[in-house]
């Protein structure tokens, strides 16, 4: 039973560029949430996708956008990268119908913006 998988593992980009991160949820899960974790900080909620729609959003600018596909996998896109976007980006999957479903995290994508 595959857990949450994320790609790529590491990424180095230049300011102003755009990046796409990918996530496949745990088998049987239908909801994908994206979190940004800066060094030494807790994960910060970016947004959540369910039924291919953005259902919840945190305090992140419109440069951060996402998508969910019919197979429940998801992408996170960040445009016009800033140095401050350097962080570990975590994808977490859960089951919408299960009240209080725990989050299952992937290993994350380490993004470095230079």
């Amino acid at each position: 039973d595959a857990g949450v998988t994320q790609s790529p593992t590491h990424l180095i980009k230049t300011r102003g560029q755009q990046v796409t991160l990918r996530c496949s949820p745990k088998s049987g899960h239908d909801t994908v949430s994206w979190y940004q974790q800066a060094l030494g900080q807790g994960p910060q909620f970016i947004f959540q996708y369910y039924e291919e729609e953005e259902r919840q959003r945190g305090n992140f600018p419109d440069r951060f956008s996402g998508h969910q596909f019919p197979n429940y996998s998801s992408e996170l896109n960040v445009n016009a990268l800033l140095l401050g976007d350097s962080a570990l980006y975590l994808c977490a999957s859960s089951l919408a119908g299960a009240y209080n479903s725990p989050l299952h995290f992937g290993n994350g994508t380490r993004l470095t913006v230079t």
Partner: protein
Amino acid sequence: GQQVMQIPQYQHVQEGEDFTTYCNSSTTLSNIQWYKQRPGGHPVFLIQLVKSGEVKKQKRLTFQFGEAKKNSSLHITATQTTDVGTYFCAGRVGNFNKFYFGSGTKLNVKP
């Protein structure tokens, strides 16, 4: 806005000593979850508390949820080197699986 505060930021203990981390929310939470993140790893779910005043135990770990559902604690008895990592609380507000994470407590255990 919604905030979940967690203290202390760091804790260094000798193996065998106890450890406690505290979590406090500015608003009432639907539930609270606890996660452990090992160095270089990702957060791993430990437990969830839902009811006011709830206490749950997992071997040497004891989790509590406050009566007002605004605070929580994790206590580890007789720490071991395998307990090393950062412990996060994550509070849920409302009905969606949107969690506000604390800043974490980094635990270091000296053998």
